[in-house]
Structure formats: structure tokens, C-alpha cells
């Protein structure tokens, strides 16, 4: 049991710091964003599982040779009023910490969901009175605003893509349909769920800078995945031109706002030692379209996916396999 706890702790530390830092610097992620996305998810899940698991196993160590047996005895102490003499201060401390961390993660996930849902509902309500359905494009709303803006608002059957007047004027029909395809890909691939969980992760553990790194990586990968869907129908040059027109157009719109309270909107909260978020992701998004790299080979993709599976399987097996390291 003690060895299991140490192994889980080592895994938790690896997944909390060196592994995400290395992955955020890796260059191959833009070649196979899907595999990279799977890997990020198993790092987050495996990391959380081993972090909680390490403390749980350490705390239950005196009660049994394996976790199921120890949990049964722990229940006996809690429910059946049996003696807890075997548990010393540090064991109880670890058990409380495991319970608190687990609850904290679940609670933050729920809280973030509630907050996001409220904001989306509010946004949708305003949108209903401020926008008009686009005549030409299905499930698309047009809002009267000079800056080129395109985004999607997820909400099950009520999901919509929102485009601004400024965008529709600035883009050719081909570029416009690339943008719409891109936004629809976000909706059909349920990217908002990924963004939500990694945002919750970041808010739950703000003191762990890698949660911010992983959220950035995931939001950048989500854009690449949506770009790849748009590329199926639009040539790369068209998509790049659309990205450039929207990015430069909205940069100008911001510059033009000057002294208004929203003028400082382009300022980013940066922390030392971390790469600038948007800059890196927008640049890598464009450069992979300008000079396309071949995707990872079949074997390499399989290796990444198998690695992701292992990251989840190892802590699970360590936790559940009875008497494995007793």
C-alpha cells in the first residue's frame, strides 16, 4: 500500500508539472491536434486521479493490504464506531485532504458550469433582440456591429453561429463560408465542453500554473481542429485570408476605441515565465496553414493515443488492483 501511494504521488507530480510543460512546448501538437487533445485530457484526468489517489492510499495504509479492504475497514470506523487507533494524525490529514480536494474539484466543475450557463443565457437573451436571422445561412444570426466578429453560442438544439455586419462586408462569400464552417465545427464537436472542463480545472487550482498552460493549449487546439474542418471545403489560402482579415480588422477596431473603457481590453494578464497566450496560438494557427506539415504517422498517432490510455490506466490499476503491491 505504501509503495502504491508513493508511485501515485510520483505520477501526480509528473503530470502536474514536467509533463504538461513539455507538451505545451512540443511542436507536433499542431500536426495532429486531435491526438494532442486526447493527451491533454488524460493528463488532466490522470493527474487528478493520482493526486487524490496518492493521499487516499497513504491515509488508508494502516487499515489493509489493498484499497477495497481498507475502505471497508474505514467505513467500519466511521459507521460502526470501531476503534481508529491505527490511524495517526498524518493518515487522517491525508484522508481529509483527499476528500477536500475531490469535493473541491467536483464543486468547482459545477460552479463553473452554472456560471457559464448563466452568462450564455443572458447573452442569448440580448442576442434575441439585437440580431436578425441571416436570410442566406441557416442557423446564423447577424448582429449590427462594424468590427468583424464571428463566434458560436452552444446550447443544444438552439446552438447558433453569430456573425457581425462588419464581418460580412469584409469577407468574400468563400471566406465567409470558411468562417461559418469553422464555427459549426466548434458546435458539432462540442468544443465548449472541453473549454469548460479545462477552465474549471484552472479555476480550481489557480496556484498550479500548468492548469493555465493546459487551458491555453486546449483552446488553441480547439481552433486548429475547427480550422481543419473548414479546410475540407475551403482552400487553405482562403481560410488564412479570412483569419487575417478578422484578426487585423478587430485589432484596428480595438486601436480605434482609444480612450474608451474597453480600450484596455487587449491587455492580457501575463505571468512571468509563461508564453503569451493569444500571440503564440494565433501565430501557430496561421503558420500551420501557410506551411502545412504532414500529420503524425499512423504509428506515432497510435503511440500518443496509447500513452494517453496508459496515463489513465496506470493510476486506476494502482488504486483498484487488490494487493498488487502489498
Amino acid at each position, binding site marked *: 500500500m505504501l509503495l502504491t501511494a508513493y508511485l501515485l504521488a510520483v505520477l501526480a507530480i509528473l503530470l502536474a508539472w514536467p509533463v504538461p510543460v513539455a507538451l505545451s512546448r512540443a511542436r507536433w501538437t499542431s500536426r495532429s491536434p486531435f491526438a494532442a487533445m486526447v493527451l491533454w485530457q488524460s493528463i488532466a484526468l490522470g493527474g487528478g486521479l493520482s493526486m487524490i489517489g496518492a493521499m487516499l492510499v497513504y491515509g488508508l495504509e494502516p487499515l489493509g493490504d489493498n484499497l477495497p479492504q481498507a475502505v471497508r475497514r474505514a467505513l467500519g470506523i466511521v459507521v460502526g464506531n470501531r476503534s481508529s487507533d491505527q490511524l495517526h494524525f498524518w493518515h487522517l490529514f491525508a484522508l481529509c485532504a483527499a476528500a477536500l480536494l475531490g469535493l473541491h474539484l467536483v464543486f468547482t466543475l459545477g460552479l463553473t458550469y452554472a456560471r457559464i450557463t448563466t452568462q450564455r443565457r443572458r447573452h442569448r437573451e440580448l442576442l434575441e433582440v439585437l440580431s436578425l436571422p441571416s436570410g442566406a445561412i441557416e442557423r446564423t444570426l447577424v*448582429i449590427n456591429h462594424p468590427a468583424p466578429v*464571428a463566434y458560436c*453560442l452552444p446550447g443544444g438544439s438552439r446552438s447558433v453561429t453569430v456573425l457581425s455586419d462588419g464581418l460580412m462586408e469584409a469577407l468574400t462569400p468563400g471566406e465567409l463560408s470558411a468562417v461559418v464552417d469553422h464555427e459549426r465545427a466548434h458546435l458539432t464537436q462540442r468544443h465548449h465542453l472541453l473549454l*469548460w472542463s479545462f477552465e474549471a480545472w484552472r479555476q480550481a487550482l489557480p496556484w498550479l500554473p500548468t492548469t493555465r498552460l493546459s487551458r491555453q493549449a486546449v483552446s488553441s487546439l480547439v481552433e486548429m481542429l475547427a480550422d481543419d474542418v473548414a479546410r475540407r471545403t475551403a482552400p487553405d489560402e482562403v481560410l488564412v485570408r479570412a483569419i*487575417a482579415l478578422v484578426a*487585423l480588422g478587430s485589432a484596428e477596431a480595438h486601436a480605434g476605441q482609444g480612450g474608451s473603457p474597453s480600450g484596455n481590453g487587449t491587455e492580457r494578464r501575463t505571468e512571468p515565465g509563461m508564453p503569451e497566450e*493569444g500571440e503564440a496560438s494565433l501565430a501557430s494557427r496561421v503558420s500551420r496553414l501557410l506551411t502545412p506539415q504532414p500529420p503524425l504517422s499512423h504509428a506515432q498517432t497510435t503511440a500518443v493515443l496509447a500513452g494517453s490510455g496508459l496515463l489513465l490506466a496506470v493510476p486506476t490499476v494502482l488504486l483498484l488492483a487488490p494487493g498488487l503491491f502489498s
Partner: protein
Amino acid sequence: MASLGELERSVMDQLWSTTDASTANELRDRLAQSEGQGHEAKDLAVTTVLTVLSRLEKKGLVERERGTRPHRYRAISTREDHTARLMHEALGTATDREAVLARFIGSVSEAEAATLRRLLARG
């Protein structure tokens, strides 16, 4: 009948077009006039307008002057202010809104624009 969503939009358009507060009756008449051409707005009942107004009030778009009878309604802020707020959320410039919306391009700083221009010049 037009859908509630469409009605909400038309009522807000009417409220935004004047600075004075209006009663539900006045709004109904103005809606009938503006959509008179072939639209069914003529059959619009005042109760429907009141329903729409109370929905808009709940959404925080409309306020009611309570002193008078019948109640008079006015828009809480201008169309431009509401649009600006939406665009803020959409561009992710408001704090901590990043996770809410996936947008084609988020807010772009001058440095990013420069990087982009450099990349495009090279490509």
C-alpha cells in the same frame, strides 16, 4: 402570429426609436403601423404586448414607470450599449469570459497583429 422572439425584437426597436416612455397601447398602435403591410400585427392584442413587455422587463431590457396608470415602459439602455456589451463578451475582452464562447478570433493585441502581418508577408 409572429413568434415571441420576433415580437420582443419589434417592441425593443420601437422603444429604442423614442426617448419617451410608452404605454402598451401606444406600442401596439405603433407596431400595427410599422408592420401594417400585410403583417398580422393588426390583430395584435394589448395583452400580448404586455406579456412581451414583462418578459423584456425580466430580462432587464425594459423598465416600468410605476407611478402612472396605465404603466409606461422605456428601454433601459441604448441599442449600441447592449451591442457593445455583447461584442465584449464575444471578443473575450471582458474579464474571465474566455470559456463562455468559442470565437473565430479573440481579442487581438497590437503585438499579435504585427506577428500576423510578418507571417503573411513571409508566406
